[in-house]
């Protein structure tokens, strides 16, 4: 019962657990994605802005204008005034030679023809480098743009270096907490900005490279400096950069852990309450069942007792006759003695005559007391008293009640009682009732002048068998089917319909069995089997 009650609660808790888990994770993860997306856009906007500026310079000025270093110096000054972050500006011709240069380094005349980025600009027209540290140990990156002459037969490259200090500003603007971190890496895992936990610019980042995704994505169970973290990241579209945001898992899922422990507490309290209620309820139910069992047992005994009394009551007329006869004898004998003393006081053999009559009186008194004792033996209460007994004696007791009745109706009572019948352990009072019921039924079934045969035999494993056969009216198959049901009677208005039901109940309780065979007009055969010892009588003895 406890398991049945807890299963729905467990299912509900598991369902809620998973539901909350997925919903809450979504709630926690979504803001991280939004933050990554927003910051990535800021970065891309910054880079796109710088690229457009370089592009504009390449398009707005001719090769000649740009090759003129004084001119370039003027352009660079305007550029630095309007757009922060520009470190230098230079013009490179198609052979890779630095034609003009404005900036902190001495790069004029340097040839870039063999450099990979130069080849890349030739192929793609645009190049944005990874972050690197120049001579002044400032992290910066390079933007280079290819530009063709109007005729299209000549081309040159405008190259600018940008200070990545702006990157740190953008990351700072994300407003991360103390335990959180954000940084850029390139596709090789080299840090492009400094990181709280992973190192400085151009160090190798401790995290593995996440799978390629241009949309913000979240990955769990990233271990960083021994802490389990959640990482949100996004690849940049036009550059080699990846933006990474790292949050400790414990912090991210704090709300979830709180909720989880709350669910566990609610579940535990629920289980305790249910268990208490279930135990209380089952206890009450079991007690009620016990009580009703005891009541049923009591009612059954009362019923058996009253049925037995009513069986005796039905015999009362016969019993009255039995007692009245010896009483009448006593009455007459006493009367005769008085008469003799009055009418024949001088009779010589008076003493012998009186003694003879007195002995008849004593005999009659014995008859009376035998009858009353027999009645009392039958009518005693139905308390279960288990004792060793000879069932033949029980049969004789029962038959003594109906022998006179049978004699008056010329019903032959045949007794075939086994002399070596096994003694069995059983309840004498209840067995008396069993056989009284069966024999009474037989007597009711036979016509005057009929016969009833009672036989006892030894059965298997020390059990015994008692058969009661009559040549009475018999019963139909339909009657036989209901014969042991309570309140079933064929004696309309006379019987209670309880006799055979009680008989059946007693025999079963004593561990025996009862069968009946019958045919209409031919008679009936009852067979009662009784074991050597009744099953488990301890409980009943105790009650």
């Amino acid at each position, binding site marked *: 019962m406890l398991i049945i009650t807890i299963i729905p609660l467990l299912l509900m808790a598991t369902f809620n657990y998973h539901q909350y888990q997925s919903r809450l994770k979504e709630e926690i993860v979504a803001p991280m994605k939004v933050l990554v997306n927003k910051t990535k856009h800021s970065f891309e906007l910054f880079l796109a802005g710088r690229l457009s500026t370089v592009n504009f310079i390449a398009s707005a000025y001719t090769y000649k204008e740009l090759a003129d270093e004084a001119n370039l110096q003027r352009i660079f000054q305007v550029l630095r005034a309007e757009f922060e972050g520009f470190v230098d500006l230079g013009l490179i011709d198609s052979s890779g030679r630095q034609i003009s240069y404005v900036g902190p380094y001495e790069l004029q005349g340097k040839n870039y023809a063999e450099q990979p980025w130069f080849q890349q600009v030739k192929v793609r027209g645009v190049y944005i480098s990874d972050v690197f540290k120049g001579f002044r140990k400032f992290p910066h990156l390079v933007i280079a743009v290819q530009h063709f002459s109007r005729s299209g037969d000549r081309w040159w490259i405008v190259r600018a270096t940008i200070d990545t200090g702006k990157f740190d500003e953008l990351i700072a603007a994300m407003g991360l907490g103390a335990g959180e971190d954000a940084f850029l890496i390139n596709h090789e895992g080299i840090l492009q900005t400094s990181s709280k936990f992973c190192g400085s610019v151009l160090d190798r980042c401790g995290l593995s490279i996440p799978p390629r995704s241009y949309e913000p994505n979240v990955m769990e169970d990233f271990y960083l400096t021994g802490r389990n973290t959640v990482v949100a990241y996004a690849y940049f579209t036009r550059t080699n950069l990846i933006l990474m945001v790292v949050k400790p898992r414990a912090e991210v899922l704090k709300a979830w852990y709180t909720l989880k422990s709350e669910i566990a507490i609610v579940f535990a309290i629920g289980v305790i309450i249910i268990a208490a209620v279930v135990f209380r309820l089952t206890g009450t139910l079991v007690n009620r069942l016990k009580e009703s069992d005891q009541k049923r047992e009591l009612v059954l005994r009362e019923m058996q007792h009253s049925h037995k009394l009513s069986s005796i009551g039905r015999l009362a007329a016969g019993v009255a006759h039995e007692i009245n006869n010896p009483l009448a004898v006593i009455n*007459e004998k006493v009367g005769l003695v008085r008469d003799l003393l009055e009418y024949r006081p001088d009779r010589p053999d008076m003493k012998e005559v009186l003694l003879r009559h007195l002995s008849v009186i004593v005999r009659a008194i014995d008859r009376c007391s035998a009858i009353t004792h027999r009645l009392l033996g039958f009518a005693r209460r139905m308390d279960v008293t288990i004792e060793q007994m000879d069932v033949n004696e029980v049969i004789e007791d029962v038959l003594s009640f109906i022998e006179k009745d049978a004699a008056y109706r010329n019903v032959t009572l045949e007794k075939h009682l086994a002399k070596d019948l096994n003694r069995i352990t059983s309840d004498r009072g209840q067995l008396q009732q069993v056989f009284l019921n069966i024999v009474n039924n037989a007597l009711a079934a036979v016509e005057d002048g009929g016969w009833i045969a009672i036989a006892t035999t030894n059965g298997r494993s020390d059990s015994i068998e008692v058969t009661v056969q009559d040549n009475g009216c018999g019963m139909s198959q339909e009657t036989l089917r209901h014969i042991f049901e309570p309140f079933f009677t064929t004696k309309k208005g006379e019987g209670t319909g309880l006799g055979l039901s009680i008989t059946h109940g007693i025999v079963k309780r004593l561990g025996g069995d009862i069968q009946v065979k019958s045919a209409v007009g031919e008679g009936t055969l009852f067979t009662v089997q009784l074991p050597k010892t009744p099953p488990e009588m301890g409980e009943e003895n105790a009650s």
Partner: protein
Amino acid sequence: MNYPKVLLVDDEKDFVCTLAERMELRDIKVDVAFNGKEALEKIKEHEHQVVVLDLLMPGMPGLEVLRRIEKDHPNTEVIILTGHGEQECKEEAIRLGASYCLLKPINIEELIDKMMTVLSLSESKKP
């Protein structure tokens, strides 16, 4: 021939013989029978005027004896004297023609009184 006019019928020999002896002490001669069959034979032979009859007897029941007496010997009056107390049985006996229905044990004077009443009734019926 002065044959007893009263017949006592009962299967309880001690009872019926003692009763007969007491009647004789009172100079009333009675005849006895110990069952229904014997009673009917004696009545057939001696045409008793009064029969004191028990109801429950082995063999022929008292009511059957009564029925036959009423049928074959209408002048014979029957007094039922029984230890059987069932009311239905008494009513049936009265219905069949018994003059009285008395319960054992009985005071002999009362029985003799009833017998005499019935005897005078029987005498008056004689043609």
